[in-house]
């Protein structure tokens, strides 16, 4: 067959390298350069987080005091001692996140249940999944513009314009996709055998969902909810012309229909003030906001990691 000849002929077409490593060959140098580049990328990528966190901790954390946490902010002026605090903003952030959660959790979990339990791969489900992805990509300021147009400018809610309710609604639009997605994915992970088992012993579909699948998916759904709330709590853009800003504490339920402050809007407003006292309040508010958000993030990580322990 003459295979020997063809083999050696083909072999001649290759450079015959020795097995001994040559650290200065072009190939090995390129390998080292790319590895180095990738290491540099990783280092550069974590520098911003380090810097932001340390500045917020140092500049924000150094002025934290009980007064700062509970007082109402005073009108802007260049006096650090009488600048007041960020109390109403902390309460406002919590209230509006809560309103957003109350609106979006039922809708989001319900929508997620529909996607994974009722219409697994139908065209309508595909359309809703697509819509959820698109909604997740809608810029947050658009949510604010939308709520402004249908709630604030129409004064549709008891004639009030800028209000905590409007702010919470804008935030709920941003939370919704996160909750739908995690519910959908959490339910998908529930093994089908359990569903068949439940239906097989005569449970209705409703009983099956409420007693079998939802409890199993509960942890992943709560992760989604926590992440959704965390995202909403840090948002500013949807609030700046829906909830606006206020310097005062909420005193009753009726205050929900008036302007309300939040940590994020406070940071935005006070960062742009020319006075150092207000800038300092903005740093302190950032400190509090970041502590809240990191706490929620760790909470969601903890929920996820404790899920994996429970294998079914």
């Amino acid at each position, binding site marked *: *067959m003459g*295979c*020997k000849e*063809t*083999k050696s002929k*083909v*072999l001649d*077409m*290759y*450079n015959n*390298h*020795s*097995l*001994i*490593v*040559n650290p200065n060959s072009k*190939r*090995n140098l390129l390998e080292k350069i790319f590895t180095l580049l990738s290491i540099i990328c990783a280092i550069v990528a974590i520098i911003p987080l380090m810097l932001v966190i340390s500045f917020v901790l140092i500049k924000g954390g150094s002025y934290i005091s009980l007064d700062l946490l509970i007082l109402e902010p005073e009108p802007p002026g260049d006096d650090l001692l009488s600048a007041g605090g960020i109390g109403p903003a902390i309460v406002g952030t919590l209230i509006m996140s809560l309103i957003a959660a109350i609106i979006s959790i039922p809708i989001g979990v319900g929508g997620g249940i529909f996607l994974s339990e009722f219409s697994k791969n139908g065209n309508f489900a595909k359309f809703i999944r697509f819509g959820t992805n698109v909604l997740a990509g809608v810029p947050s300021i658009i949510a604010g513009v939308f709520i402004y147009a249908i709630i604030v400018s129409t004064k549709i809610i008891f004639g009030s314009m800028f209000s905590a309710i409007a702010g919470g609604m804008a935030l709920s639009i941003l939370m919704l996709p996160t909750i739908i997605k995690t519910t959908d994915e959490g339910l998908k992970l529930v093994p089908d055998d359990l569903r068949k088992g439940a239906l097989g012993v005569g449970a209705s579909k409703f009983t099956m969902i409420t007693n079998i699948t939802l409890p199993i998916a509960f942890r992943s759904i709560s992760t989604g909810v926590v992440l959704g709330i965390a995202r909403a709590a840090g948002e500013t853009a949807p609030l700046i012309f829906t909830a606006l800003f206020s310097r005062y504490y909420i005193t009753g339920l009726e205050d929900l229909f008036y302007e309300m402050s939040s940590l994020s809007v406070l940071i935005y407003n006070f960062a742009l003030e020319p006075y150092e006292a207000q800038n300092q309040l903005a740093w302190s508010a950032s400190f509090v906001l970041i502590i809240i958000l990191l706490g929620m993030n760790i909470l969601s990580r903890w929920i996820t990691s404790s899920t994996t322990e429970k294998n079914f």
Partner: protein
Amino acid sequence: MLHNKDKIKNNQSTNNCISFENVSIKYGNSVAIRNVFCDIPRSNVTSFIGPSGCGKSTALRAINRMNDLIDGCQLLGRVFFEGIDLYSVDIDPVEVRRKIGMVFQQPNPFPKSIYENIAFGARINGYKGNMDDLVESSLRKAAVWEECKDKLNESGYSLSGGQQQRLCIARTIAIQPEVILMDEPCSALDPISTLKIEETIHELKKNFTIIIVTHNMQQALRVSDYTAFYNAESTQESNSGKVGYLVEFDKTNKIFNSPKQQATQDYISGKFG
């Protein structure tokens, strides 16, 4: 190749291509295989057989330093290729794999066209000849040219499992290694594809030293000239279960007809494994 005389084993004149010298391989703290001594001859087909968990694949992957990719894998002893210690610090594992090619258990073509699947390896190894010719001759030698010639630009994954595996063989042939390692190349294939691969192996042994891991004794009998039988035993020193070792290595017909060890006899007669 010769500028490192101390690494070169003195019995160069022999017909040995690969030699294991007291090789033990560990994954973290558990020993996969221990104290293997074995000389594998050139231009022959050698098969590694044994029950699952006996470390035969681990031993095979030690030959082209594929185990380097596994975290925590450590080799003691020495593996020689043409008299050179492959685990010496100044050996470039990339060059080792270029000279000792490998075909895997699962067919694993690249998600590229059939043509590119072959041209890629040749190109990165600095092939300077006519690429079309190389692709054709490699596919012919792997006996898959007829199936591929009209769809060289289609994805490698458009082929059937058996054809994919022969494409992978062609890809390995194209870089002109001296040794081809095959790790249970037929375990994912149907009997007809298996037969075709075996025919290909017969053709290839004219040019290459082939080492094949198989769990199929009939296959070892059909394709190989030499056979190494590995077994596993439980030991107290390794808490994670079994440790593999080489029981017997000889000409295939001797292993199958007149083995020296009782364990070999038991295994080939189907008493365990």
